Protein backbone atom coordinates (compact mmCIF):
# COMPACT_ATOMS: atom_id res chain seq x y z
CA UNK A 1 0.00 0.00 0.00
CA UNK A 2 2.85 2.33 0.87
CA UNK A 3 4.32 1.98 -2.61
CA UNK A 4 1.05 3.05 -4.21
CA UNK A 5 0.69 5.96 -1.80
CA UNK A 6 4.11 7.34 -2.59
CA UNK A 7 3.44 6.82 -6.30
CA UNK A 8 0.34 9.03 -6.06
CA UNK A 9 2.25 11.63 -4.05
CA UNK A 10 5.20 11.80 -6.43
CA UNK A 11 3.03 12.17 -9.50
CA UNK A 12 0.91 14.85 -7.79
CA UNK A 13 3.97 16.93 -6.96
CA UNK A 14 5.29 16.63 -10.48
CA UNK A 15 2.02 17.56 -12.16
CA UNK A 16 1.43 20.53 -9.89
CA UNK A 17 4.53 22.19 -11.39
CA UNK A 18 2.74 23.48 -14.46
CA UNK A 19 1.01 26.52 -13.09
CA UNK A 20 1.20 28.82 -16.12
CA UNK A 21 -0.50 26.22 -18.25
CA UNK A 22 -3.19 25.92 -15.62
CA UNK A 23 -3.81 29.67 -15.71
CA UNK A 24 -4.25 29.63 -19.47
CA UNK A 25 -6.53 26.65 -19.06
CA UNK A 26 -8.75 28.48 -16.61
CA UNK A 27 -9.20 31.37 -19.05
CA UNK A 28 -10.18 28.90 -21.76
CA UNK A 29 -12.58 27.11 -19.45
CA UNK A 30 -14.31 30.32 -18.44
CA UNK A 31 -14.79 31.33 -22.06
CA UNK A 32 -16.21 27.91 -22.92
CA UNK A 33 -18.49 27.97 -19.91
CA UNK A 34 -19.87 31.38 -20.87
CA UNK A 35 -20.49 30.28 -24.45
CA UNK A 36 -22.37 27.17 -23.35
CA UNK A 37 -24.37 29.05 -20.75
CA UNK A 38 -25.44 31.73 -23.23
CA UNK A 39 -26.48 29.17 -25.85
CA UNK A 40 -28.53 27.27 -23.26
CA UNK A 41 -30.17 30.50 -22.10
CA UNK A 42 -31.18 31.25 -25.68
CA UNK A 43 -32.65 27.78 -26.07
CA UNK A 44 -34.62 28.03 -22.83
CA UNK A 45 -36.07 31.34 -24.05
CA UNK A 46 -37.85 29.43 -26.81
CA UNK A 47 -40.07 27.41 -24.50
CA UNK A 48 -42.29 27.74 -21.45
CA UNK A 49 -42.75 24.04 -20.89
CA UNK A 50 -41.08 22.56 -17.83
CA UNK A 51 -37.84 20.82 -18.76
CA UNK A 52 -36.13 17.87 -17.04
CA UNK A 53 -33.46 20.36 -15.98
CA UNK A 54 -34.39 23.91 -14.94
CA UNK A 55 -32.34 26.72 -16.50
CA UNK A 56 -30.42 27.51 -13.29
CA UNK A 57 -29.65 23.81 -12.94
CA UNK A 58 -28.44 23.60 -16.53
CA UNK A 59 -26.18 26.62 -15.97
CA UNK A 60 -24.75 25.02 -12.84
CA UNK A 61 -24.26 21.77 -14.73
CA UNK A 62 -22.16 23.59 -17.35
CA UNK A 63 -19.86 25.06 -14.70
CA UNK A 64 -19.47 21.71 -12.96
CA UNK A 65 -18.43 20.25 -16.28
CA UNK A 66 -15.85 22.99 -16.78
CA UNK A 67 -14.51 22.63 -13.25
CA UNK A 68 -14.15 18.84 -13.37
CA UNK A 69 -13.04 18.67 -17.01
CA UNK A 70 -9.58 17.35 -16.29
CA UNK A 71 -10.86 14.45 -14.23
CA UNK A 72 -12.34 12.73 -17.27
CA UNK A 73 -10.26 9.96 -18.89
CA UNK A 74 -9.58 11.85 -22.16
CA UNK A 75 -6.58 9.67 -22.98
CA UNK A 76 -4.40 6.99 -21.48
CA UNK A 77 -1.36 7.70 -19.34
CA UNK A 78 1.01 8.90 -22.07
CA UNK A 79 4.12 7.78 -20.20
CA UNK A 80 2.80 4.27 -19.64
CA UNK A 81 1.77 4.11 -23.29
CA UNK A 82 5.29 5.12 -24.25
CA UNK A 83 6.70 2.38 -21.99
CA UNK A 84 4.64 -0.21 -23.79
CA UNK A 85 5.57 1.21 -27.19
CA UNK A 86 9.33 1.16 -26.65
CA UNK A 87 9.47 -2.03 -24.63
CA UNK A 88 10.62 -0.46 -21.37
CA UNK A 89 7.57 -2.03 -19.82
CA UNK A 90 10.04 -4.80 -19.01
CA UNK A 91 11.41 -2.64 -16.18
CA UNK A 92 7.91 -2.29 -14.78
CA UNK A 93 7.72 -6.06 -14.56
CA UNK A 94 10.78 -6.14 -12.32
CA UNK A 95 9.08 -4.03 -9.65
CA UNK A 96 7.77 -6.05 -6.72
CA UNK A 97 4.29 -4.53 -6.97
CA UNK A 98 1.20 -5.47 -8.87
CA UNK A 99 1.42 -3.77 -12.27
CA UNK A 100 -2.29 -3.01 -12.61
CA UNK A 101 -2.31 -1.44 -9.16
CA UNK A 102 0.75 0.62 -9.93
CA UNK A 103 -0.73 2.03 -13.11
CA UNK A 104 -4.02 2.63 -11.35
CA UNK A 105 -2.19 4.67 -8.71
CA UNK A 106 -0.46 6.67 -11.44
CA UNK A 107 -3.83 7.30 -13.08
CA UNK A 108 -5.31 8.55 -9.81
CA UNK A 109 -2.59 11.20 -9.56
CA UNK A 110 -2.79 11.99 -13.27
CA UNK A 111 -6.49 12.84 -12.98
CA UNK A 112 -6.53 14.35 -9.51
CA UNK A 113 -3.69 16.89 -9.73
CA UNK A 114 -4.91 18.93 -12.72
CA UNK A 115 -8.47 18.71 -11.46
CA UNK A 116 -7.51 20.35 -8.20
CA UNK A 117 -5.75 23.15 -10.07
CA UNK A 118 -8.72 23.74 -12.35
CA UNK A 119 -11.64 23.09 -10.07
CA UNK A 120 -10.77 25.42 -7.19
CA UNK A 121 -10.66 28.65 -9.22
CA UNK A 122 -13.58 27.73 -11.47
CA UNK A 123 -15.73 26.87 -8.44
CA UNK A 124 -14.72 30.08 -6.68
CA UNK A 125 -15.60 32.21 -9.70
CA UNK A 126 -18.80 30.38 -10.60
CA UNK A 127 -20.11 30.29 -7.03
CA UNK A 128 -19.17 33.72 -5.75
CA UNK A 129 -18.11 36.11 -8.50
CA UNK A 130 -20.32 35.62 -11.56
CA UNK A 131 -23.58 37.57 -11.78
CA UNK A 132 -26.75 35.79 -10.66
CA UNK A 133 -27.93 34.59 -14.07
CA UNK A 134 -24.59 32.96 -14.91
CA UNK A 135 -23.78 31.58 -11.48
CA UNK A 136 -23.50 28.15 -9.94
CA UNK A 137 -25.59 27.75 -6.79
CA UNK A 138 -24.40 26.11 -3.59
CA UNK A 139 -26.39 22.92 -2.91
CA UNK A 140 -27.85 21.77 0.39
CA UNK A 141 -25.56 19.90 2.76
CA UNK A 142 -27.10 16.60 1.64
CA UNK A 143 -26.60 17.49 -2.01
CA UNK A 144 -22.99 18.45 -1.37
CA UNK A 145 -22.28 15.16 0.38
CA UNK A 146 -23.92 13.19 -2.42
CA UNK A 147 -21.88 15.14 -4.97
CA UNK A 148 -18.68 14.41 -3.07
CA UNK A 149 -19.38 10.68 -2.92
CA UNK A 150 -20.36 10.54 -6.58
CA UNK A 151 -17.22 12.49 -7.53
CA UNK A 152 -15.04 9.92 -5.79
CA UNK A 153 -16.98 7.23 -7.62
CA UNK A 154 -16.40 9.08 -10.90
CA UNK A 155 -12.66 9.34 -10.26
CA UNK A 156 -12.35 5.61 -9.55
CA UNK A 157 -14.38 4.78 -12.65
CA UNK A 158 -12.36 7.16 -14.83
CA UNK A 159 -9.06 5.64 -13.70
CA UNK A 160 -10.31 2.16 -14.59
CA UNK A 161 -10.97 3.53 -18.09
CA UNK A 162 -7.54 5.14 -18.24
CA UNK A 163 -5.94 1.82 -17.39
CA UNK A 164 -7.96 0.05 -20.04
CA UNK A 165 -6.67 2.55 -22.61
CA UNK A 166 -3.11 1.90 -21.46
CA UNK A 167 -3.56 -1.82 -21.75
CA UNK A 168 -5.04 -1.59 -25.24
CA UNK A 169 -1.56 -0.46 -26.29
CA UNK A 170 -0.33 -4.06 -26.07
CA UNK A 171 -2.37 -4.71 -29.22
CA UNK A 172 -2.53 -1.38 -31.05
CA UNK A 173 1.02 -0.18 -30.29
CA UNK A 174 0.49 3.33 -31.63
CA UNK A 175 -2.37 4.34 -29.36
CA UNK A 176 -3.27 7.14 -31.79
CA UNK A 177 -6.64 5.64 -32.57
CA UNK A 178 -7.89 5.15 -29.02
CA UNK A 179 -6.50 8.50 -27.87
CA UNK A 180 -8.42 10.23 -30.65
CA UNK A 181 -11.61 8.24 -30.40
CA UNK A 182 -12.15 8.28 -26.65
CA UNK A 183 -12.53 12.06 -26.32
CA UNK A 184 -15.39 11.97 -28.85
CA UNK A 185 -17.17 9.20 -26.97
CA UNK A 186 -16.62 10.81 -23.59
CA UNK A 187 -17.63 14.30 -24.60
CA UNK A 188 -21.01 13.06 -25.84
CA UNK A 189 -21.91 10.39 -23.29
CA UNK A 190 -20.61 11.99 -20.10
CA UNK A 191 -22.70 15.13 -20.46
CA UNK A 192 -19.80 17.44 -21.31
CA UNK A 193 -21.35 18.40 -24.66
CA UNK A 194 -25.01 18.73 -23.73
CA UNK A 195 -26.37 18.00 -20.24
CA UNK A 196 -27.56 14.40 -20.51
CA UNK A 197 -31.09 15.10 -19.20
CA UNK A 198 -31.62 17.41 -22.20
CA UNK A 199 -31.05 14.67 -24.77
CA UNK A 200 -34.29 13.31 -26.32
CA UNK A 201 -36.33 11.13 -23.99
CA UNK A 202 -35.86 7.99 -26.04
CA UNK A 203 -32.08 8.26 -25.59
CA UNK A 204 -32.26 8.47 -21.81
CA UNK A 205 -32.35 4.73 -21.16
CA UNK A 206 -29.22 4.12 -23.21
CA UNK A 207 -27.35 7.03 -21.64
CA UNK A 208 -28.23 5.70 -18.21
CA UNK A 209 -26.89 2.21 -18.88
CA UNK A 210 -23.56 3.31 -20.39
CA UNK A 211 -20.69 3.77 -17.93
CA UNK A 212 -19.87 7.30 -19.14
CA UNK A 213 -22.73 9.03 -17.33
CA UNK A 214 -20.99 8.13 -14.08
CA UNK A 215 -17.95 10.23 -15.02
CA UNK A 216 -19.54 13.70 -15.00
CA UNK A 217 -23.32 13.65 -15.28
CA UNK A 218 -24.07 11.81 -12.03
CA UNK A 219 -22.12 14.05 -9.63
CA UNK A 220 -23.30 17.19 -11.45
CA UNK A 221 -26.95 16.25 -11.11
CA UNK A 222 -26.55 15.81 -7.36
CA UNK A 223 -24.84 19.18 -7.07
CA UNK A 224 -27.52 21.12 -8.95
CA UNK A 225 -30.25 19.24 -7.09
CA UNK A 226 -31.84 17.48 -10.04
CA UNK A 227 -31.38 14.21 -8.15
CA UNK A 228 -32.38 13.90 -4.50
CA UNK A 229 -29.45 13.12 -2.15
CA UNK A 230 -31.30 10.04 -0.89
CA UNK A 231 -30.92 8.47 -4.34
CA UNK A 232 -27.15 8.57 -4.14
CA UNK A 233 -26.83 4.86 -3.26
CA UNK A 234 -28.45 3.74 -6.47
CA UNK A 235 -26.03 5.79 -8.53
CA UNK A 236 -22.99 4.87 -6.46
CA UNK A 237 -23.84 1.21 -7.00
CA UNK A 238 -24.05 1.82 -10.73
CA UNK A 239 -20.63 3.52 -10.78
CA UNK A 240 -19.18 0.81 -8.57
CA UNK A 241 -20.48 -2.07 -10.70
CA UNK A 242 -18.99 -0.51 -13.82
CA UNK A 243 -15.69 0.12 -12.05
CA UNK A 244 -15.48 -3.50 -10.93
CA UNK A 245 -16.33 -4.73 -14.43
CA UNK A 246 -13.66 -2.52 -16.01
CA UNK A 247 -11.02 -3.39 -13.42
CA UNK A 248 -11.61 -7.13 -13.69
CA UNK A 249 -11.69 -6.90 -17.49
CA UNK A 250 -8.57 -4.74 -17.48
CA UNK A 251 -6.66 -7.16 -15.26
CA UNK A 252 -7.61 -10.04 -17.49
CA UNK A 253 -6.50 -8.16 -20.60
CA UNK A 254 -3.25 -7.12 -18.93
CA UNK A 255 -2.43 -10.74 -18.14
CA UNK A 256 -3.09 -11.71 -21.74
CA UNK A 257 -1.14 -8.74 -23.05
CA UNK A 258 1.90 -9.54 -20.90
CA UNK A 259 1.88 -13.09 -22.12
CA UNK A 260 2.41 -11.75 -25.63
CA UNK A 261 5.24 -9.43 -24.72
CA UNK A 262 8.61 -10.41 -26.01
CA UNK A 263 11.45 -8.51 -24.40
CA UNK A 264 14.61 -8.15 -26.40
CA UNK A 265 17.78 -8.46 -24.42
CA UNK A 266 20.10 -5.49 -24.49
Amino acid sequence: MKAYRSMVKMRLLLLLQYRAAALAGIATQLMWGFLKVMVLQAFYLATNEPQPLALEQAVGYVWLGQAMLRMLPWDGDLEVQELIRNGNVAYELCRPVDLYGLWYARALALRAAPTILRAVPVFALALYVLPESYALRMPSAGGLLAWLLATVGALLLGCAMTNLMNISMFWTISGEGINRLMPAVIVVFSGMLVPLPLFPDWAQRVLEILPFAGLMDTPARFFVGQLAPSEVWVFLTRQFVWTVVLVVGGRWLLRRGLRRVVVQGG
Partner: protein
Amino acid sequence: MQGQRAWARLKYQRAAMGSIRLYLRFIGMSFRSQLQYPASFLMMTMGNLTVTSIEFLAIWALFTRFGSLQDWTLPQVAVFYGMVHTAFAMAEAGARGFDILHRWVRAGDFDRILLRPRSTVLQVLGLEFQLMRVGRFAQGLVVLGWGIRNLGIALTPMQLLLIIGSICGGSLLFSGLFILQATLSFWSVESLEVVNVATYGGVEAAQVPMSIYNEWFRRFFTVVIPLAAINLVPLSAILEHPSLQGVPGWLAWLSPLAGLAFCLVCLKIWHFGVRHYRSTGS
Protein backbone atom coordinates in the same frame (compact mmCIF):
# COMPACT_ATOMS: atom_id res chain seq x y z
CA MET B 1 14.39 53.82 -69.73
CA GLN B 2 11.31 52.17 -71.13
CA GLY B 3 13.21 48.95 -71.59
CA GLN B 4 14.61 49.08 -68.09
CA ARG B 5 11.17 49.40 -66.53
CA ALA B 6 9.84 46.54 -68.60
CA TRP B 7 12.83 44.45 -67.52
CA ALA B 8 12.18 45.22 -63.85
CA ARG B 9 8.54 44.32 -64.25
CA LEU B 10 9.45 41.06 -65.92
CA LYS B 11 11.85 40.20 -63.14
CA TYR B 12 9.20 40.93 -60.53
CA GLN B 13 6.65 38.81 -62.37
CA ARG B 14 9.06 35.93 -62.62
CA ALA B 15 9.84 36.11 -58.93
CA ALA B 16 6.12 36.06 -58.12
CA MET B 17 5.54 33.16 -60.49
CA GLY B 18 8.47 31.37 -58.91
CA SER B 19 6.97 31.81 -55.47
CA ILE B 20 3.67 30.36 -56.55
CA ARG B 21 5.44 27.47 -58.23
CA LEU B 22 7.54 26.88 -55.15
CA TYR B 23 4.47 26.92 -52.92
CA LEU B 24 2.77 24.39 -55.17
CA ARG B 25 5.88 22.23 -54.97
CA PHE B 26 5.79 22.41 -51.17
CA ILE B 27 2.11 21.47 -51.15
CA GLY B 28 2.70 18.61 -53.54
CA MET B 29 5.42 17.26 -51.31
CA SER B 30 3.18 17.55 -48.27
CA PHE B 31 0.33 15.75 -50.08
CA ARG B 32 2.56 12.92 -51.16
CA SER B 33 3.96 12.38 -47.69
CA GLN B 34 0.48 12.34 -46.14
CA LEU B 35 -0.85 9.89 -48.72
CA GLN B 36 2.11 7.59 -48.20
CA TYR B 37 0.01 5.64 -45.70
CA PRO B 38 -3.45 5.68 -47.30
CA ALA B 39 -5.21 3.62 -44.64
CA SER B 40 -3.87 5.81 -41.86
CA PHE B 41 -4.82 8.95 -43.79
CA LEU B 42 -8.35 7.66 -44.34
CA MET B 43 -8.80 6.85 -40.68
CA MET B 44 -7.49 10.24 -39.59
CA THR B 45 -9.89 11.95 -41.98
CA MET B 46 -12.84 9.89 -40.81
CA GLY B 47 -11.84 10.61 -37.23
CA ASN B 48 -11.70 14.33 -37.96
CA LEU B 49 -15.13 14.13 -39.59
CA THR B 50 -16.67 12.30 -36.64
CA VAL B 51 -15.10 14.44 -33.94
CA THR B 52 -16.07 17.71 -35.59
CA SER B 53 -19.61 16.52 -36.41
CA ILE B 54 -20.26 16.13 -32.70
CA GLU B 55 -20.76 19.89 -32.44
CA PHE B 56 -23.75 19.65 -34.74
CA LEU B 57 -25.08 16.70 -32.77
CA ALA B 58 -25.26 19.01 -29.75
CA ILE B 59 -27.19 21.66 -31.67
CA TRP B 60 -29.54 19.06 -33.11
CA ALA B 61 -30.17 17.48 -29.69
CA LEU B 62 -31.07 20.84 -28.18
CA PHE B 63 -33.32 21.69 -31.12
CA THR B 64 -35.29 18.45 -30.70
CA ARG B 65 -35.93 19.41 -27.09
CA PHE B 66 -36.56 23.14 -27.40
CA GLY B 67 -37.82 23.55 -30.98
CA SER B 68 -35.91 26.75 -31.69
CA LEU B 69 -32.92 28.77 -30.53
CA GLN B 70 -34.44 32.01 -29.29
CA ASP B 71 -36.39 32.49 -32.54
CA TRP B 72 -33.89 31.02 -35.00
CA THR B 73 -34.83 27.85 -36.87
CA LEU B 74 -32.58 24.83 -37.32
CA PRO B 75 -31.90 25.44 -41.07
CA GLN B 76 -30.87 29.03 -40.30
CA VAL B 77 -28.50 27.88 -37.58
CA ALA B 78 -27.20 25.20 -39.96
CA VAL B 79 -26.13 27.92 -42.41
CA PHE B 80 -24.14 29.72 -39.68
CA TYR B 81 -22.64 26.44 -38.56
CA GLY B 82 -21.69 25.27 -42.05
CA MET B 83 -20.10 28.58 -42.99
CA VAL B 84 -17.84 28.84 -39.98
CA HIS B 85 -16.78 25.19 -40.02
CA THR B 86 -15.83 25.17 -43.71
CA ALA B 87 -13.93 28.43 -43.23
CA PHE B 88 -12.07 27.11 -40.21
CA ALA B 89 -11.25 23.80 -41.89
CA MET B 90 -9.59 25.64 -44.78
CA ALA B 91 -7.56 27.79 -42.41
CA GLU B 92 -6.60 24.76 -40.31
CA ALA B 93 -5.41 22.89 -43.40
CA GLY B 94 -3.63 25.76 -45.16
CA ALA B 95 -2.13 27.67 -42.24
CA ARG B 96 -1.11 24.57 -40.31
CA GLY B 97 2.53 25.66 -40.64
CA PHE B 98 1.84 28.63 -38.38
CA ASP B 99 0.01 26.40 -35.95
CA ILE B 100 3.08 24.21 -35.39
CA LEU B 101 5.69 26.96 -35.73
CA HIS B 102 6.37 27.17 -32.00
CA ARG B 103 8.08 23.78 -32.24
CA TRP B 104 10.48 25.22 -34.80
CA VAL B 105 11.11 28.28 -32.71
CA ARG B 106 11.69 26.26 -29.56
CA ALA B 107 14.23 24.04 -31.32
CA GLY B 108 15.94 26.96 -33.02
CA ASP B 109 14.99 25.57 -36.43
CA PHE B 110 13.46 28.86 -37.48
CA ASP B 111 17.01 29.96 -38.39
CA ARG B 112 16.86 27.65 -41.36
CA ILE B 113 13.82 29.47 -42.69
CA LEU B 114 15.53 32.84 -42.25
CA LEU B 115 18.61 31.69 -44.15
CA ARG B 116 16.76 30.82 -47.33
CA PRO B 117 16.27 33.58 -49.91
CA ARG B 118 12.48 33.38 -49.88
CA SER B 119 9.74 35.06 -47.84
CA THR B 120 9.17 33.59 -44.40
CA VAL B 121 5.41 33.51 -44.90
CA LEU B 122 5.72 31.41 -48.04
CA GLN B 123 8.03 28.94 -46.37
CA VAL B 124 5.92 28.57 -43.22
CA LEU B 125 2.80 28.09 -45.33
CA GLY B 126 4.65 25.40 -47.20
CA LEU B 127 5.63 23.47 -44.06
CA GLU B 128 2.47 21.44 -44.15
CA PHE B 129 -0.93 21.41 -45.79
CA GLN B 130 -3.03 19.18 -43.59
CA LEU B 131 -5.25 17.12 -45.84
CA MET B 132 -7.16 15.32 -43.10
CA ARG B 133 -8.98 18.58 -42.29
CA VAL B 134 -11.15 17.71 -45.23
CA GLY B 135 -13.19 15.82 -42.61
CA ARG B 136 -14.33 19.00 -40.87
CA PHE B 137 -14.77 20.69 -44.23
CA ALA B 138 -17.02 17.92 -45.53
CA GLN B 139 -19.33 17.87 -42.53
CA GLY B 140 -19.55 21.67 -42.58
CA LEU B 141 -20.40 21.63 -46.27
CA VAL B 142 -23.11 18.99 -45.79
CA VAL B 143 -24.69 20.95 -42.95
CA LEU B 144 -24.47 24.17 -44.97
CA GLY B 145 -26.08 22.54 -48.01
CA TRP B 146 -28.86 21.04 -45.90
CA GLY B 147 -29.47 24.40 -44.25
CA ILE B 148 -29.66 26.29 -47.55
CA ARG B 149 -32.07 23.74 -49.04
CA ASN B 150 -34.39 23.94 -46.05
CA LEU B 151 -34.37 27.70 -45.57
CA GLY B 152 -37.46 27.99 -47.73
CA ILE B 153 -36.00 30.75 -49.89
CA ALA B 154 -34.37 30.42 -53.30
CA LEU B 155 -30.92 32.00 -53.29
CA THR B 156 -29.84 34.16 -56.21
CA PRO B 157 -26.40 33.42 -57.69
CA MET B 158 -25.15 36.67 -56.16
CA GLN B 159 -26.27 35.57 -52.70
CA LEU B 160 -24.54 32.25 -53.16
CA LEU B 161 -21.42 34.13 -54.15
CA LEU B 162 -21.73 36.20 -50.99
CA ILE B 163 -21.79 33.01 -48.90
CA ILE B 164 -18.70 31.69 -50.66
CA GLY B 165 -16.99 35.06 -50.23
CA SER B 166 -17.82 35.06 -46.53
CA ILE B 167 -16.36 31.58 -46.14
CA CYS B 168 -13.14 32.76 -47.81
CA GLY B 169 -13.14 35.87 -45.61
CA GLY B 170 -13.60 33.67 -42.56
CA SER B 171 -10.80 31.41 -43.64
CA LEU B 172 -8.48 34.40 -43.96
CA LEU B 173 -9.55 35.63 -40.54
CA PHE B 174 -8.77 32.31 -38.87
CA SER B 175 -5.47 32.13 -40.75
CA GLY B 176 -4.69 35.56 -39.32
CA LEU B 177 -5.29 34.17 -35.84
CA PHE B 178 -2.91 31.27 -36.51
CA ILE B 179 -0.31 33.80 -37.71
CA LEU B 180 -0.77 35.77 -34.48
CA GLN B 181 -0.32 32.60 -32.45
CA ALA B 182 2.90 31.84 -34.33
CA THR B 183 4.13 35.41 -33.80
CA LEU B 184 3.54 35.06 -30.07
CA SER B 185 5.93 32.13 -30.02
CA PHE B 186 8.81 34.51 -30.81
CA TRP B 187 8.36 35.86 -27.31
CA SER B 188 7.05 32.86 -25.39
CA VAL B 189 6.67 29.22 -26.33
CA GLU B 190 4.53 28.47 -23.28
CA SER B 191 0.83 29.11 -22.71
CA LEU B 192 0.06 29.49 -26.39
CA GLU B 193 -3.27 27.80 -25.77
CA VAL B 194 -4.62 31.21 -24.81
CA VAL B 195 -5.03 31.77 -28.54
CA ASN B 196 -7.41 28.79 -28.60
CA VAL B 197 -9.95 31.06 -26.96
CA ALA B 198 -10.03 33.03 -30.21
CA THR B 199 -9.62 30.17 -32.71
CA TYR B 200 -11.56 27.19 -31.38
CA GLY B 201 -13.60 29.51 -29.19
CA GLY B 202 -14.37 31.61 -32.25
CA VAL B 203 -15.66 28.60 -34.15
CA GLU B 204 -17.74 27.56 -31.16
CA ALA B 205 -19.11 31.09 -30.83
CA ALA B 206 -19.87 31.66 -34.50
CA GLN B 207 -21.53 28.31 -35.21
CA VAL B 208 -24.78 29.77 -33.90
CA PRO B 209 -26.10 33.28 -34.67
CA MET B 210 -24.05 35.62 -32.53
CA SER B 211 -27.06 37.84 -31.88
CA ILE B 212 -28.03 35.48 -29.03
CA TYR B 213 -24.99 36.44 -26.98
CA ASN B 214 -24.49 38.98 -24.31
CA GLU B 215 -23.62 42.53 -25.38
CA TRP B 216 -19.95 42.59 -24.31
CA PHE B 217 -19.33 39.16 -25.75
CA ARG B 218 -20.80 40.13 -29.10
CA ARG B 219 -18.74 43.31 -29.11
CA PHE B 220 -15.53 41.33 -28.58
CA PHE B 221 -16.28 39.18 -31.62
CA THR B 222 -17.28 42.17 -33.72
CA VAL B 223 -14.63 44.75 -32.91
CA VAL B 224 -11.57 42.89 -31.59
CA ILE B 225 -11.89 39.80 -33.78
CA PRO B 226 -14.30 40.62 -36.62
CA LEU B 227 -16.06 37.24 -36.61
CA ALA B 228 -19.50 38.79 -37.03
CA ALA B 229 -18.29 40.32 -40.30
CA ILE B 230 -17.91 36.89 -41.86
CA ASN B 231 -21.29 35.44 -40.95
CA LEU B 232 -23.85 37.51 -39.08
CA VAL B 233 -23.47 40.69 -41.13
CA PRO B 234 -23.32 39.19 -44.64
CA LEU B 235 -26.17 36.80 -43.83
CA SER B 236 -28.40 39.80 -43.15
CA ALA B 237 -28.59 40.14 -46.94
CA ILE B 238 -29.98 36.61 -47.17
CA LEU B 239 -31.86 35.55 -44.05
CA GLU B 240 -35.08 37.07 -42.79
CA HIS B 241 -34.77 37.70 -39.09
CA PRO B 242 -35.74 40.59 -36.81
CA SER B 243 -32.26 40.84 -35.28
CA LEU B 244 -30.73 41.33 -38.73
CA GLN B 245 -32.90 44.36 -39.58
CA GLY B 246 -31.14 47.66 -39.86
CA VAL B 247 -27.88 46.35 -41.30
CA PRO B 248 -27.29 48.49 -44.41
CA GLY B 249 -27.12 46.49 -47.63
CA TRP B 250 -23.71 47.75 -48.73
CA LEU B 251 -22.21 46.73 -45.38
CA ALA B 252 -23.57 43.22 -45.72
CA TRP B 253 -21.95 42.84 -49.13
CA LEU B 254 -18.60 44.35 -48.18
CA SER B 255 -18.12 42.92 -44.71
CA PRO B 256 -16.36 39.66 -45.76
CA LEU B 257 -13.44 41.90 -46.74
CA ALA B 258 -12.90 42.44 -43.02
CA GLY B 259 -11.40 38.95 -42.96
CA LEU B 260 -8.82 39.99 -45.53
CA ALA B 261 -8.05 43.21 -43.68
CA PHE B 262 -7.62 41.31 -40.42
CA CYS B 263 -5.25 38.85 -42.07
CA LEU B 264 -3.16 41.69 -43.53
CA VAL B 265 -2.84 43.31 -40.11
CA CYS B 266 -1.72 39.97 -38.66
CA LEU B 267 0.90 39.64 -41.41
CA LYS B 268 2.25 43.09 -40.48
CA ILE B 269 2.55 41.95 -36.87
CA TRP B 270 4.24 38.76 -38.07
CA HIS B 271 6.93 40.72 -39.92
CA PHE B 272 7.46 42.79 -36.80
CA GLY B 273 7.83 39.56 -34.82
CA VAL B 274 10.30 38.04 -37.27
CA ARG B 275 12.58 41.06 -36.83
CA HIS B 276 12.56 40.43 -33.10
CA TYR B 277 13.25 36.72 -33.31
CA ARG B 278 16.20 35.52 -31.31
CA SER B 279 17.50 32.08 -31.95
CA THR B 280 18.17 29.62 -29.17
CA GLY B 281 21.75 29.71 -30.43
CA SER B 282 22.29 25.99 -30.46
